């Protein structure tokens, strides 16, 4: 980094700090919209577009970035406390976050999530800033063939979940993949399995599926109990001690935060890939190389850190292709592009030559937002965790009505509310009969993406299946994928063998 860049960065950093009066209210707005299922940074920016366009460039930029970061973090709050992931990017968060809340550790779980999100987000922002030219190249190597393997990393989580009950786990996973194949095909736009419903032409909408499988089904389950917290988990008065304990747990696993947030960053810089892929892949990798994989899914802090660090890593990652190549990495980045172009900003390779303060300013706005978020949100975990002690006779109807509205919001179809209810019933039956809803959901979320990359690969090779092994990077990923499946099994066998050897 030369001295002129360093001076620009310093100047932009202090300038961004001066926008605290925009950042702090936006953080709270972002937390709210991120926490409400169906709302997101993208549709909030669209709703507030007249305001964003009326602001000057720097203010608009700071507003959008703060909202983006805060919404990402906000989505984790209801995922942890009431099993409602606000967005697909938070779909892996409840796997361990919600069991913690049920054990009366909601406050610790929130603190862990906030620390993992802020450190993950801040760290990846710094890495993205420092290594932008290199990261921008990732998209040049990660094509459809390579993305198939990345998808398989995430989908293989089904097998991990199925390990508890292989037949039921695989049935649930395949059911999810089948549901995920509903919609028009990516090549000729031919409708499949839509049962004539126009609303399914674009595939099964993610938010109704997400809130239905997780939240509505959970509401049906918790109504049978007095409060969310289990009988053996003590609903106790919130205190600072639990928050600090959560912070301590997260900080003691800083290597884990670093590692999984980098997974998020790398996946984030690939145009079209998103936070849902990153969080599932990070969770799967975290579990695969854990010394205690059996604890995942039971309220294990590392199972919460992995998806939260990763999905915040994606946030900074999506800015890289937008700024360097002019290609938005996701929906929010695409809308940012519209706003920025309205202000006359030209993205692409020349951005850092012509308007360096804009390019660096976006990363600085992100870094400053994460710092402010850490300071403002962490103390709130003490109060937020109260939710788990609300009697379920009030909480369950609230969850159902809240999530049905959330199911409606993204597309404004009544159909989506019915769909959320249908998924809720499916999820309830699955829970009561020992099928894992997460396995169904992974299929629903990652199945269509896997199919898209698979069909593109086959189309590019005129149907030759060997295209899957045609690239060097792809082959390296295949080996890594095989190792990530085999090595944990080997480690597990070794551990068992050690335990079987009597102590001398």
């Amino acid at each position, binding site marked *: 980094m030369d001295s002129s860049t360093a001076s620009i960065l310093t100047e932009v950093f202090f300038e961004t700090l001066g926008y605290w009066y925009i950042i702090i209210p936006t953080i709270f707005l972002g937390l709210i919209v991120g926490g409400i299922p169906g709302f997101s940074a*993208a549709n909030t920016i*669209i709703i507030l*577009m007249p305001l964003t366009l009326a602001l000057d460039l720097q203010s608009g930029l700071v507003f959008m970035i703060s909202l983006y970061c805060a919404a990402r973090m906000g989505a984790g709050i209801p995922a942890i406390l009431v099993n409602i992931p606000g967005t697909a990017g938070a779909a892996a968060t409840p796997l361990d976050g919600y069991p913690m809340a049920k054990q009366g550790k909601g406050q610790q779980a929130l603190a862990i999530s906030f620390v993992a999100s802020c450190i993950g987000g801040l760290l990846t922002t710094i890495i993205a800033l420092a290594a932008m030219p290199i990261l921008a190249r990732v*998209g*040049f190597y990660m*094509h*459809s063939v390579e993305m198939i393997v990345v998808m398989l990393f995430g989908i293989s989580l089904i097998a991990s979940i199925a390990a508890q009950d292989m037949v039921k786990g695989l049935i649930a996973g395949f059911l999810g993949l089948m549901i995920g194949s509903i*919609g*028009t095909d*990516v*090549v*000729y*736009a*031919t*409708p499949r399995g839509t049962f004539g419903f*126009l609303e399914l*032409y*674009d*595939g099964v909408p993610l938010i109704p599926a997400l809130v239905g499988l997780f939240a509505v089904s959970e509401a049906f389950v918790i109504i049978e109990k007095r409060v969310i917290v289990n009988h053996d988990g003590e609903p106790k008065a919130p205190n600072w001690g639990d928050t600090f304990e959560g912070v301590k747990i997260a900080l003691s696993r800083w290597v884990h935060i670093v590692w999984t947030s980098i997974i998020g960053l790398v996946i984030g810089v690939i*145009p*079209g890939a998103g936070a849902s892929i990153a969080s599932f892949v990070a969770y799967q990798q975290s579990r695969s190389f854990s010394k205690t994989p059996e604890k995942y899914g039971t309220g294990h802090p590392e199972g919460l850190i992995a998806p939260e660090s990763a999905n915040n890593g994606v946030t900074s990652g999506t800015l890289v*292709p937008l700024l360097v*190549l*002019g*290609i*938005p990495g996701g*929906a929010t980045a*695409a*809308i940012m*592009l*519209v706003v920025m*172009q*309205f202000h*006359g900003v*030209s*993205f*692409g*390779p*020349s951005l850092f030559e012509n308007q360096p303060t804009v390019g660096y300013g976006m990363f600085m706005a992100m870094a400053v937002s994460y710092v402010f978020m850490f300071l403002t949100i962490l103390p709130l975990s003490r109060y937020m965790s109260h939710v788990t002690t609300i009697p379920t006779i009030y909480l369950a109807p609230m969850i159902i009505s809240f999530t049905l509205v959330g199911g409606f919001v993204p*597309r*404004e179809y009544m159909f989506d509310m019915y769909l959320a209810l249908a998924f809720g019933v499916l999820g309830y039956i699955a829970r009561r009969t020992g099928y894992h809803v997460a396995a169904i959901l992974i299929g629903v979320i990652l199945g269509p993406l896997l199919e*898209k990359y698979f069909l*593109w690969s086959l*189309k*590019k090779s*005129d149907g030759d299946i060997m295209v899957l092994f045609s690239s060097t990077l792809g082959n390296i990923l295949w080996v890594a994928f095989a190792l990530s499946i085999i090595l944990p099994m080997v480690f597990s066998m070794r551990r068992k063998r050690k335990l079987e050897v009597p102590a001398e």
Partner: protein
Amino acid sequence: MSMKPTITRRALLGTGAAAATLTLATPGLLRASSFPERNFSVYIPTAEGGGADRNFRAFSSVWKTRLGVEFEPSFYPGASGRVGYEIYMGKAEPDAYNLLFGNIGPEVLNWAMQAPSFDINDYIYFGQVDKDPCCLFVGAESPLKTMDDIIAAAKTRKLNVGTSRMAHPASIGLLALGDKLGLEFNLIPLQGGKGTVAGAVTGEVDFSVLTSGSVIAAGDAVKTLLVFGNNIVGEALDNAPSINDAYDMDLPEMLSTRAFGIHKKAVDDYPDRFEVLTRTFKETHEDPALMEAYIASKGQPEYLVYAGVEECEAEKAAMLELGARYKSLLSGA
């Protein structure tokens, strides 16, 4: 008996209040008979954040000042635009307050591939916002730098070509080029303009074809090599030649035409409302503020061209005919 006209305090106050109410209500009563009385809902069959979003916002920001109400967009992507049209035709009230903002080229081609559930004559396009020819472009770092490079490479292997969707005028332009040169190309639908640009830039495909407005907006990340129509913007499209000039062809222009549409029933039932829409639409085109807004949204001034019902309908018919001709190649049938 003589009646002495008297007025009590109560009557005076009552009459005064009635008069005041009537006076205050008069503009409202007059407004009630005018059009529009409320905001317009605009159905857009693509995702937010793309070229349609940009154009819509630029145009409606000026149009709304003439009508005094807002244009509220709703985005319905999916199935190559089919979802948005089906929702508009199936669910939106045909009252001239519900409008469509589509792209005549690729979206009408869809109907040639697979007929929609409604009669395609039940809606019309009444006003063209802009029109740009499709083009062929490579990523800035592509090893294929010229058309000669592409032709030479295509003779050794089947090149993969990104397109927004199979049924797209740009796809037809490429297939026509392949016919002329005896080359075979493999079209890869990359689901939208952003994906198509990304595909060419990152090397997912060898090169891409797309509407030139979106290619220009991608800036120096791409380089245009050929235009499936007339290059009226010169340097903005890297001075790329027209396909007809370069290869001695007689291909009609492969155009992307963004236009507002409306239910035919609304036109028939509310001719006065339709007249307001078409008149103010044309006036908006004549307003210099539109050009400013269009350029601010990265539009090319040369592409901002007005066309009314007749021209739009003629293009709709031309696209249907073109689609029928290339159906087997574009639909996999």
